[in-house]
């Protein structure tokens, strides 16, 4: 028996998300009195792989096959399902990010394993195996029983604290031969943004809504974000209007994020917006309307004009940095 965790890498590097997954897997393994095997696909060097041991991984299986550079959901599923059978995994943990959403459901069918997706706590119970997941876009949470022998959990990003447990993990380089005809995905072009904090990874997010009035008013919001080391986001009408790029839109039909701090500037707090941000640990609202629903979701609020408040906030942050 073991707990298997798939740790994705980005250009050969892991990030906080990877360590959260391993910490979570370690927590589950402890409940089950078993060990943690991490699976890495792609070229990751040994010192980087070793880092997974710092969060409790006992064994790391590294598959550095050239054919697996681009995500092909079928090929990745084959590799992970093969390893999970070899390791006799009873629980498989994957991120609830884009890659995880591509792999987990295929793996579920391949292994006849039920999936609990968007899970944000350790299992509530082992018998029956019960997980805690987000439903109704954050308006409710459900206790879900997974009845199959093998269970798959996709973990919501930023929902689980890192636990450092120094473990001298063993590394096993595994060669999984892939039949070329199984690789169906052809990547014709890649466009990467460099230097921008990935919104779903960010600890702090500064977000602007229609109350910002015009794209010309964004520099002070961006300056505040830069000073705080924060990512920038926006409400849907703002991205629909083209004031901000599409990938900044948060909410029901945009990105779902859970930073430590979300600062909502000129955002009314419509249910569909809250659907994307309600798991943030702290929400701050700046709005001219004291009755705006965003204040009900916030721990701190300023009733005021964003154009006047933002420069003052920038000045105040400069004082402490």
């Amino acid at each position, binding site marked *: 028996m073991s707990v298997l965790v798939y740790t994705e890498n980005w250009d050969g590097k892991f990030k906080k998300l990877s360590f959260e997954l391993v910490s979570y897997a370690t927590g589950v393994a402890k409940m089950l009195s078993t060990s943690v095997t991490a699976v890495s696909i792609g070229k990751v060097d040994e010192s980087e792989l070793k880092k997974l041991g710092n969060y409790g991984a006992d064994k790391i299986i590294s598959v550095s096959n050239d054919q697996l550079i681009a995500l092909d*959901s*079928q090929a990745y599923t084959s590799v992970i399902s093969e390893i999970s059978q070899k390791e006799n995994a009873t629980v498989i943990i994957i991120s609830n*990010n*884009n890659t995880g*959403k*591509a*792999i987990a*459901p*295929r793996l579920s*069918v*391949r292994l*006849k394993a*039920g*999936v609990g997706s*968007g899970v944000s706590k350790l299992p509530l119970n082992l018998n029956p195996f*019960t997980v805690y997941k987000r*439903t*109704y*876009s*954050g*308006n*409710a949470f*459900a*206790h*879900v*029983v997974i*009845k*199959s022998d093998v269970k798959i959990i996709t973990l919501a990003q930023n929902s689980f604290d890192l636990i450092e447990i120094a473990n001298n993990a063993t590394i096993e380089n595994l060669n999984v031969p892939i039949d070329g005809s199984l690789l*169906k*995905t*052809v*990547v*014709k072009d*890649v466009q990467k943004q460099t230097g921008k904090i*990935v919104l*779903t*990874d960010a*600890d702090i997010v500064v977000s602007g809504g229609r109350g910002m009035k015009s794209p010309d008013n964004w520099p002070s919001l961006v300056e505040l974000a830069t000073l705080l080391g924060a990512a920038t986001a926006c409400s849907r009408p703002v991205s629909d209007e083209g004031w901000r790029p599409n990938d900044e839109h948060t909410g*029901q*039909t*945009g*990105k779902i994020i859970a930073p430590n701090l979300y600062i909502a500037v000129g955002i009314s707090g419509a249910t569909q917006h809250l659907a994307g941000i309600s798991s943030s640990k*702290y929400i701050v*609202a700046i709005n001219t309307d004291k009755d705006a629903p965003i204040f*009900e*979701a*916030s*721990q*701190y*609020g*300023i*009733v*005021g*004009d964003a154009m006047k*408040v933002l420069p*003052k906030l920038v000045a*105040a*942050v400069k*004082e*402490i940095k």
Partner: protein
Amino acid sequence: MKILVCISNVPDTTTKIKFAEGNTSIDTTGIQWVINPWDELSLTRALELKDDAASGIKSVTVVHVGPSTSEPTIRKALAIGADDAIRVNAESSEAWFVAFQIAEVVKKEQFDIIMCGIESSDYNGSVVGGMISEFLGIPSVSAVSGIKIENGQPVMTREIDGGKEVVIVPAPFVAIVQKGIAKEPRIAAMRGIMMARSKPVKLVESVAVEPLTQIVVFEKPAPRAACKFIDADNPAQLIDLLQNEAKVI
């Protein structure tokens, strides 16, 4: 080429969720049911592709797994412009069950592109599309934010952390779509609503499958503490609270 769009029937996104039967189910009193927002956008994009004669898309079919009470949602999809519909007659209890039923439909009828939303706004599972493709053993592309047809070949854009990729896979395949797939959902016009009445809805009986998961109880999100208001003339106090009270900056 033929497109199949998978449609989920969900409470309107502004619904205040209440529970019933000892918090084991949702109180459906007064709920307005709508097409899941992602599926509405995916249907919109499928119809845009069909409108372009050069795309080679000949028809757009919608499929829904649900009881007869979800018929209005299917009619709405037909009014927006789908050519026909298939309803698998069953309570859509769980993702595994639903994906299995849709895969059975696809096995009997030929489709080249199967489109699913990235999640339904009720169970937020994000798994049905991937499961359908694995049941059928065909490729799937997830996080698709754009699809077009170039010389008869579907070309997709998918989102990756911090960027995008342009990808192709051989048909038939499942496209799991998200933000960007279409700008605004297409709205049914009067003519569409009239025409929808006579469009065919094929009824299919479900295949028995044992579900793998079950929701046992619902909970409300933990309540947040009341908002602390800070004077607009003194935002420095906010920074102080974030630094020393919340300890988040």
